[in-house]
């Protein structure tokens, strides 16, 4: 169908709804059956986003409460000077855990979880495109997070601060497994964040209501798209950093040890290259909540929608240019201080745009001062104040004074608590009517807001002064004679007031939150977006055509028509779970994707992934390996059902639109997910190459260090040739497979795949052997450490691809792979070509760069 045809069809559809009523008998029953969550013990295998999303938000909120309790213990210790309530060891564990849990186990998962819950509803998709991936990410995070938290009860919690600067956190100054627990906790959130990012990017771009083009996308979906994009480019830096630190701790590869050519500053660059975007990763979705709630409470569309979208994109972009402002006191050159100071100030402009857009929207409408509105106003008050102190700390001379003092503690609580927790509470009060049979109490909600808002400002406003009079962060005690005691006492009182507000919120939840009932009080705030359509486990009965940013305000009779099944796909024609995949920009229906349902292997894979990481942390290597192998088997088992091939010829979704049930290549959602994963891999590799060059700048004139020879160029050429030829074989297999179309399984494909594996592994082996023969070892110098790390990363890809090659062959043997039914093969092929590209770039840099400078 050409674009013009589709447009005329669209216009016609607006006048005549795509499906006629009454709907055939049994259609709704079938839809309900297909999407019903399993019962009994199998209940925990549920994958529907409305269930996993709620579990996920609940778990994140649990970690918020737990980390909050840790903060209360700290505030009690600091209430009076020279307190001996708790000692330095516990205190140092407490502040490390408080920061780590709040950032990694609460803030990021909470906003991601809200996305899992809200996005399909807001886009009228039946679910996110990879439901089992969401379930896996949740379970791995939940199990891993609980184990990580319980380390505090055994005195085994990390105590190096949430930023974990080496050398303090490396093997010499932090023996014992406390620091490894930090790496464990972070490992889970890395997995679930990346999984979530892939899910959300593909979900926002490909599973929208027909007609919901990018210029009609709710701002919240925009923020989540940018959020996920930022995770793709920011998280690899921390994944690499944690991997390097664990390599240093476990095998003494000296990345951060100054005497062996390493640099403690390498960690700081990698950590903050992730850590600063991280702040906006948390804030942007929260700003998205606000941009959804304000139009509803003011009953008018958002003013300057386009400018707000530009502001969000600009924030995402700028936030990658600021990381050095966490390092103003490390003795950097004036020029880089100036650059990063300017960039740090510039990032406040997009936030200013949003704040004024919200004010303008409030002025355009007429606000109803309900609980979500109160939390949003509380957010604006707090966040603007935090933003202004943020501009102050971006000033280099001012930062030299207040860096690492309570002023900074006050600043980032204003932007994080103010910028994320207030909007989150607003979001809870606002969206719970879509998830629960009853809304939360407006009366209690006002008290919750009052206690938290006053408590927050009582706790954190005085800290600005505490910091200015010289109190540093992360101290478990302070002398009486310095005059810090009154301010600290006030802060402690405020902290307990916040806690009482949160407690009252929990009471409200217990009294009123009744999820999973398929009952809803309806569109209680008279909102305009699709998540307020009547819905069940299958989301909306039929998938509407959207012609406005606020369809419920502008498209008369929409809820009734959707509920009656007059729009697209009112049943479950393939007999399984399915939703419409749309084109990324203008949301034209492209095909119907068949989605997998509940599955035990997904949950077990998550549990055994957690077991593997935990085993490694407590040095139980054999159980860890067994656990890891089981996890891999479980992942393969779960994947086996996820490439079903074309089960029906074409499906009529209504209005004369017939869609295929299976596509391959760049139109496939699976292809998009693989491309995002490759972007993650590419970013990881780029940060590794950055580390290589950074370590070179630390060792100028000694790269490689004296006594180290480079392998001859012949070896590297051979390795490059092997990588390239393995990709060539895969390319050939693809071309031949395409020509066979639906002729059934084919032995030639299996043979070619099996031939490509040794070529690829040979490339790695040749490269490794070349370095090993020269006597280069990873433990002696940062040069060797980084060279072996480049090869190790390549090794992880080679191992993964070997597994994928065998899996692909197995699919062929099972008769589930041919010239059309080939998504599994395509994924293997894409990943393979990426592996080759990375291998070639790595070889070129490691073998040519030292020769170039030497």
């Amino acid at each position: 169908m050409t674009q013009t045809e589709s447009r005329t069809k669209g216009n016609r559809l607006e006048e005549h709804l795509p499906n006629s009523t009454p709907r055939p008998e049994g259609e709704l029953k079938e839809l309900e059956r297909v999407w019903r969550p399993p019962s009994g013990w199998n209940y925990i295998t549920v994958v529907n986003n409305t269930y996993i999303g709620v579990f996920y938000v609940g778990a994140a909120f649990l970690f918020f409460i737990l980390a909050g309790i840790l903060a209360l213990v700290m505030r009690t210790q600091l209430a009076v000077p020279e307190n001996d309530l708790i000692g330095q060891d516990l205190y140092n564990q407490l502040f490390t855990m408080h920061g780590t849990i709040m950032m990694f186990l609460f803030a990021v998962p909470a906003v991601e979880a809200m996305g899992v819950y809200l996005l399909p509803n807001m886009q009228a998709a039946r679910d996110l495109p990879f439901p089992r991936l969401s379930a896996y990410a949740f379970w791995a995070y939940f199990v891993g997070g609980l184990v990580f938290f319980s380390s505090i009860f055994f005195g085994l919690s990390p105590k190096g601060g949430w930023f974990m600067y080496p050398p303090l956190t490396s093997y010499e100054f932090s023996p014992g497994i406390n620091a490894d627990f930090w790496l464990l906790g972070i490992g889970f959130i890395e997995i679930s964040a990346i999984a979530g990012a892939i899910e959300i990017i593909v979900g926002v771009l490909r599973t929208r209501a027909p007609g919901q083009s990018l210029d009609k996308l709710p701002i919240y979906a925009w923020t989540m798209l940018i959020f996920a994009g930022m995770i793709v480019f920011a998280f690899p830096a921390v994944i690499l950093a944690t991997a390097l630190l664990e390599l240093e701790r476990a095998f003494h590869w000296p990345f951060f040890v100054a005497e062996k050519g390493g640099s403690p500053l390498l960690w700081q660059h990698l950590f903050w290259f992730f850590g600063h975007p991280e702040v906006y990763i948390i804030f942007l979705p929260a700003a998205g909540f606000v941009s959804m709630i304000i139009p509803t409470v003011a009953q008018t569309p958002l003013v300057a929608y386009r400018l707000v979208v530009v502001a969000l994109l600009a924030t995402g972009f700028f936030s990658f240019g600021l990381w050095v402002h966490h390092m103003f006191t490390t003795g950097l050159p004036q020029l880089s201080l100036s650059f990063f100071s300017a960039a740090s100030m510039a990032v406040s402009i997009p936030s200013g745009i949003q704040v004024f857009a919200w004010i303008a929207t409030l002025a355009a409408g007429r606000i109803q001062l309900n609980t979500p509105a109160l939390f949003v106003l509380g957010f604006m008050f707090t966040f603007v104040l935090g933003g202004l102190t943020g501009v102050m700390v971006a000033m280099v001379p001012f930062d030299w004074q207040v860096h690492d003092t309570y002023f900074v503690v006050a600043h980032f609580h204003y932007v994080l608590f103010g910028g994320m927790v207030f909007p989150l509470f607003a979001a809870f009060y606002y969206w719970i009517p879509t998830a629960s049979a009853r809304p939360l109490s407006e009366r209690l909600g006002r008290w919750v807001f009052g206690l938290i808002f006053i408590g927050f400002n009582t706790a954190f406003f005085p800290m600005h002064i505490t910091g200015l009079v010289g109190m540093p962060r992360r101290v478990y005690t302070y002398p009486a004679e310095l005059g810090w005691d009154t301010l600290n006492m006030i802060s402690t009182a405020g902290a307990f007031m916040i806690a009482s507000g949160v407690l009252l919120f929990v009471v409200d939840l217990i009294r009123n939150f009744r999820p999973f009932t398929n009952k809803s009080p309806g569109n209680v705030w008279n909102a305009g977006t699709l998540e307020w359509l009547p819905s069940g486990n299958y989301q909306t009965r039929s998938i509407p055509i959207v012609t406005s940013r606020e369809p419920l305000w502008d498209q008369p009779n929409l809820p009734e028509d959707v509920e009656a099944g007059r729009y697209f796909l009112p049943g479950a024609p393939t007999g399984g779970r399915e939703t419409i995949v749309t084109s990324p920009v203008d949301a034209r229906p492209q095909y119907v994707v068949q989605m997998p349902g509940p599955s035990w292997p997904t949950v077990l894979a998550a549990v055994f992934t957690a077991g593997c990481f935990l085993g490694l942390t407590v040095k139980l290597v054999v159980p860890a390996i067994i656990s890891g192998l089981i996890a891999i088997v479980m992942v393969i088992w779960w994947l086996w059902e996820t490439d079903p091939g074309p089960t029906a010829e074409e499906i009529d979704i209504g209005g004369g639109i017939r869609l295929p049930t299976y596509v391959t290549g760049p139109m496939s959602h699976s292809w998009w997910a693989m491309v995002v994963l490759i972007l993650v891999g590419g970013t990881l590799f780029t940060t590794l190459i950055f580390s290589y060059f950074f370590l070179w700048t630390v060792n100028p004139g000694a790269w490689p260090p004296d006594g180290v020879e480079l392998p001859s160029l012949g070896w590297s050429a051979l390795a490059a040739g092997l990588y390239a030829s393995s990709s060539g074989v895969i390319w050939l297999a693809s071309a031949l497979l395409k020509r066979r179309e639906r002729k059934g399984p084919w032995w030639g494909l299996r043979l070619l795949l099996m031939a490509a594996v040794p070529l690829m592994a040979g490339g790695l082996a040749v490269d490794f052997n070349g370095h090993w023969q020269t006597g280069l070892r990873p433990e002696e110098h940062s040069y060797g450490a980084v060279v072996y790390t480049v090869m190790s990363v390549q090794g992880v890809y080679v191992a993964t691809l070997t597994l994928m090659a065998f899996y692909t062959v197995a699919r062929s043997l099972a008769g589930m792979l041919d010239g059309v039914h080939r998504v599994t093969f395509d994924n293997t092929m894409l990943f393979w070509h990426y592996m080759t590209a990375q291998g070639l770039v790595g070889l070129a840099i490691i073998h040519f760069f030292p020769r170039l400078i030497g």
Partner: protein
Amino acid sequence: MFTGGALIFVLVVALTAVAIVVPQERRRWLADGRIVMAGGIALPVLVLSALLGYGLFVARGQLNPGEPALRIEVVGEQWWWRVRYLDGSGGVRFVTANEIRIPIDQPIEFLLTSADVIHSFWAPSLAGKLDMIPGKVNSYTFSADKPGVYRGQCAEYCGAQHALMAFYVVAMEPEAFETWASHQTAPSEQPVTDELRSGQELFIANGCGACHTVRGTSARGEIGPDLTHVGGRLSIGAGTLPTNKGTLAGWVASTQHLKPEVFMPSFGNLEGKELRAIAAYLESLE
């Protein structure tokens, strides 16, 4: 800066209030995309450009204060400060710990590094902080205008006793400083009474010299602070306690209680009389 920040804050809060409470027909001007442009783009660009220029101007001044009159090397260690005064040719004139005396009105250059983990050198009333990083020497120059005692503290979390890693900067008239400096160059006072002599013997006999140096005796350890003139310093334990006979005795007997996890063991084996003798000896090392 604080005034400017407060003004902007009040402006935003006031506009929000207008958007909520002023009657709708009188706030229509605010419900406009042009307000978003003016408030969200034009205003911050103007304010921030001015602020940035001012900040860089100030920073430049702080980074280039002129030729130093004195250079002092400070090494951060878990959880104390090793201080080396350098002579004109860069050699070490004398070594001390946890207390830095400087002449007023003269630019002093501080060369900062670390022996173990990252620390940060910070005397708030005199200058901003600068990190002490293993394998790297950071330096900056500042001066004190008035004589006095200025407290400083480690500002980068450095492990168990980060909280008790303080120091004092004592700014003095130049002549008084010279007198002090030449006294520091000299070896320690010799004990003059029986108690002090026995204190010195106990100090050596208990192996204190394995970690500490007292110039003029056989104690030449380099692991812990140089104690040659410890009695003349304001504090012990890196700003933990004031220096007097009682605190010295308490420190030696129960180090691990007063500052848990420091590398010095508690000498709980010493009897009261022995402790008093050692404390008296240390106090006499002015």
